[in-house]
């Protein structure tokens, strides 16, 4: 410990203080926290109080015998870090039965959470509270309270650890407040299958451990850091891991080198006997612009003056037709148009812009270039699946006034955003003939994966997927997804379901193995209705998802100026054959739910409760919390509780997981609406499994909300 302090002091002296401007170059990526071997932001093995900014997604991989760790992290808020850890414990077999395990080592999956409770001030450190492995097998179960303070170019950390990060050197201070903290008492006895949250152990134990260290930013080394820590992990028989791990010294060292702002590599020496190495990737997607310059500016209409003069001299039909031409060229599809009292009304749909306000801005930009001076206002109505979403009335003078300086705030005060009458456009003068049916399609790569089972670490297949949408009418479509497998390693995948519930999900191995050549994922028809303002409905039939087909419907009440929605859905479904073509199995059921949605307008957190009967005929509730960011990134967590016992549910005890959806456009220089999702459940079980039906009414009517339009309004002139 003394040697560490001397080293820290020496480095302080060497680096000295830098001027702020110089420091940005001498210590680049100063604001980028680094990850611990454990997989969350921290020191080497120990946590720190640092967190990434809200909207950050990260991935780490590290190897320090006997652990190989991978983790995925998300920061929904500046003050909250959630992570999922996957650990290969290579000094322990997968199960106690050698016949079952084969050569597979033990795999542990766990969830972690860290909360910032005090933001760093000039004279106060940042303080955070964290929970490791709180919902899994509790192999690494621990809690901590930690403080970090940046002084010069060194970030000091000091913390108090409980559970596996307690080397039991001091009395537990909480035990003096309440005797219940004097043991790591488990509140879960008897009927447990693992995976429950062990509240009873939190901050418990007769003794706690003190840990600490420093992250030293090295000058002129591209943001490299040296980490030194005092490791309070209990590697003994009652500590981390199934088998004890030798710890020769409690001081660990690590060198972290940021190859880029988002990619860090690290090499360390821990316990005075083990080399560790790893890498991490992270990116922040909270802002509208994510660093990729878009090469898709608002279009300039060639010879726009000519258009303005021609339409001025003739009938409005010229205006309609020129609008249709230029809007279609820019992937905005005019449905109806009408000129009334110097107001130019247009009903449109579009599938290019994720941000609805940006689509309105692009539309207004084209109309402003080609419309005669007599037009003083644009009234633009967005529709989706023939359902009215929102309307914006834009005074043309204000549009032009604020355009050059992109004063979207000022423009927002001048425009009117409201919910249109669903029948309003029926009396419009101009209704261009639409050639229906029409089909759009694309080919894309697809990977299906099974990770962490006893048969092997990774099983997957790679296929080419065909996606299509055929519009029979504006409100009647057919969706399809079909794939042709290119290669897979499913041959050794053998694990059979042990579920005592109907196998609505746990036969995943059979589905994967029997559909590896080619299969149909979806073949679904949808008929949408918008009978009244705020009331939306649809009926659907066909193949909904890889495991179920059937028919049913959904209804949603979603007031435009409110932030909630209430809906109901009911589906009669039959389980599909493992071959995933048109065959089916014997299992049929009726599943349905009442849905309640509430989006908190400031934080953009969506709270979704789904209550009803699930696929395995268990009844209960599913809770989903997610947050939307300016870039379109959406991340969240979910869990479900139903009327089956933990034993019936099996390992994991209840359904839970997390997900994020990231818009494709953040990676590219063109705008697009597509997004990619990543979702993870620690275990796939049969309880609390809802049917997956594409184009839910909540997602189809996403734009039908005043706050949603205002949220993206700063992108109006993009």
């Amino acid at each position, binding site marked *: 410990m003394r040697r560490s302090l001397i080293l820290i002091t020496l480095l302080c002296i060497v680096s000295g203080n830098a001027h702020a401007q110089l420091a940005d170059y*001498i210590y680049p990526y100063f604001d980028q926290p680094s990850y611990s071997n454990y997989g969350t932001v921290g020191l080497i093995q120990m946590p720190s109080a640092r967190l990434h900014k809200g909207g950050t*997604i990260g991935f780490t991989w590290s190897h320090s015998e006997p652990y190989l760790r991978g983790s995925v992290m998300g920061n929904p808020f500046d003050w909250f870090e959630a992570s999922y850890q996957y650990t290969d414990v290579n000094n322990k077999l997968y199960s106690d039965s050698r016949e079952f395990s084969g050569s597979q080592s033990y795999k542990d999956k766990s969830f972690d959470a860290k909360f910032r409770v005090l933001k760093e001030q000039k004279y106060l450190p940042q303080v955070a509270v964290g929970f490791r492995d709180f919902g899994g097998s509790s192999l690494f179960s621990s809690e901590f309270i930690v403080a970090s303070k940046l002084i010069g170019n060194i970030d000091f950390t000091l913390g108090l650890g409980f559970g596996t990060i307690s080397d039991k050197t001091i009395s537990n201070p909480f035990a003096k407040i309440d005797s219940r903290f004097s043991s790591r008492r488990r509140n879960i006895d008897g009927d447990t299958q693992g995976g429950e949250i062990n509240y009873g152990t939190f901050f418990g134990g007769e003794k706690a451990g003190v840990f600490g260290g420093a992250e030293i930013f090295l000058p002129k080394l591209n943001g490299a850091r040296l980490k030194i820590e005092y490791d309070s992990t209990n590697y003994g028989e009652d500590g981390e891991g199934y088998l004890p791990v030798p710890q020769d010294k409690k001081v660990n060292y690590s060198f972290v080198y940021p190859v880029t702002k988002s990619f860090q590599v690290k090499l360390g020496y821990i316990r005075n006997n083990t080399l560790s190495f790893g890498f991490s990737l992270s990116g922040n997607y909270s802002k509208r612009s994510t660093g990729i*310059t878009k090469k898709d500016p608002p279009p300039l209409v060639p010879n726009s003056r000519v258009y303005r003069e021609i339409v001025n001299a003739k009938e409005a039909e010229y205006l309609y037709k020129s609008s249709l031409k230029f809007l279609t060229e820019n992937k905005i599809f005019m449905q109806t148009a009408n000129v009334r009292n110097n107001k130019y009304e247009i009903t449109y749909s579009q599938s290019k812009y994720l941000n609805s306000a940006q689509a309105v801005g692009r539309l207004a930009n084209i109309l402003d270039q080609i419309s005669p001076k007599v037009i003083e206002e644009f009234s633009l109505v967005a529709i989706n699946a023939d359902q009215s979403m929102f309307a914006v009335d834009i005074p043309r003078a204000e549009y032009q006034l604020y355009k050059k300086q992109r004063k979207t705030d000022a423009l927002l005060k001048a425009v009117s955003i409201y919910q249109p009458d669903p029948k309003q456009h029926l009396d419009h003068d101009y209704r261009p003939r639409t050639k229906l049916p029409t089909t759009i399609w694309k080919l*894309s790569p697809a990977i299906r994966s099974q990770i962490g089972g006893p048969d092997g670490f990774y099983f997957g297949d790679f296929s080419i997927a065909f996606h299509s949408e055929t519009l029979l009418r504006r409100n009647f479509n057919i969706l399809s997804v079909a794939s042709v497998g290119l290669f897979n390693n499913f041959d050794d995948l053998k694990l059979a379901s042990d579920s005592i519930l109907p196998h609505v999900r746990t036969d995943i191995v059979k589905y994967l193995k029997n559909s590896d050549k080619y299969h149909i994922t979806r073949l679904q028809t949808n008929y949408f209705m918008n009978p009244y303002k705020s009331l939306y409905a649809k009926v659907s039939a066909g193949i909904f998802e890889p495991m179920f087909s059937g028919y049913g419907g959904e209804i949603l009440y979603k007031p435009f100026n409110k932030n909630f929605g209430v809906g109901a859905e009911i589906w009669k479904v039959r389980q599909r054959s493992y071959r995933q073509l048109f065959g089916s199995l014997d299992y049929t059921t009726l599943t349905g739910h009442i849905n309640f949605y509430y989006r908190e307008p400031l934080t953009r957190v969506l709270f979704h409760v789904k209550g009803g009967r699930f696929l395995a005929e268990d009844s209960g509730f599913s809770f989903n919390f997610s947050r939307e960011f300016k870039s379109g990134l959406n991340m969240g967590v979910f869990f479900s509780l139903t009327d089956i016992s933990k034993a019936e549910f099996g390992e994991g005890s209840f359904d839970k997981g997390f997900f994020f959806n990231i818009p*494709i456009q953040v990676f590219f220089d063109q705008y697009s609406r597509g997004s990619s999702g990543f*979702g993870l459940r620690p275990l796939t079980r049969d309880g609390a499994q809802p049917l997956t039906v594409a184009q839910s009414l909540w997602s189809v009517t996403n734009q039908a909300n005043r706050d949603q339009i205002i949220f993206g309004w700063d992108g109006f002139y993009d």
Partner: protein
Amino acid sequence: MIRILLILISITGCGNLPIAYIQNFSEVNNVIFGFPDYEITDEIYENYDNSFMKIRFGRGPHAILILAYINDDVYEWIGSDDVRIFTYNGRIIRTIGLPHNFESTNYSKDNFALDNSSYDLINLYNPDLYSVKMERVLQSKESKLDRLGEVIDIYRITERFRIESIGWTGKNIYYQNKETMNIEMLEQDIHPRLPTLKVEYYLKY
């Protein structure tokens, strides 16, 4: 790098959550393996009325900038998204419109003189850092270069630079035509937070 990982993660379906997809495989290919190079052919060259430059940051996509102005032998090149690059004797001395910009405030009139080492005063932007001293040492050797289908003799000038105060060092390479003494191509580090900028000049006079 994060883009690559997220793309790979994103086309992976885990458990039974909906499997995601990528819209355009060629775009994914570009992000992972870099954007393909393309050659300026005689035909492309002839289609431009003005002098232009082809630029590329690292393995990123290409862009074409057109020569817009010449003031006191400083050439100003303008791109479609308001990026401006200023060159003097073929060497980049200033940029505008990039995420991180650069400016040389006392660039040498004879910026490829090999007789001794020299220094420039540099401004770096985002983060802003003014008047830092950049030391330069040049070396040259003869070589050949294929340009528009012709092999030409060139001087391959290597410029090693160092900004001591921030610990930034690097190497720029200029390909100078032996006959015209014009710079035909260059690879120049203009900002510590940007990949190397590669430029090919296509002059029309």
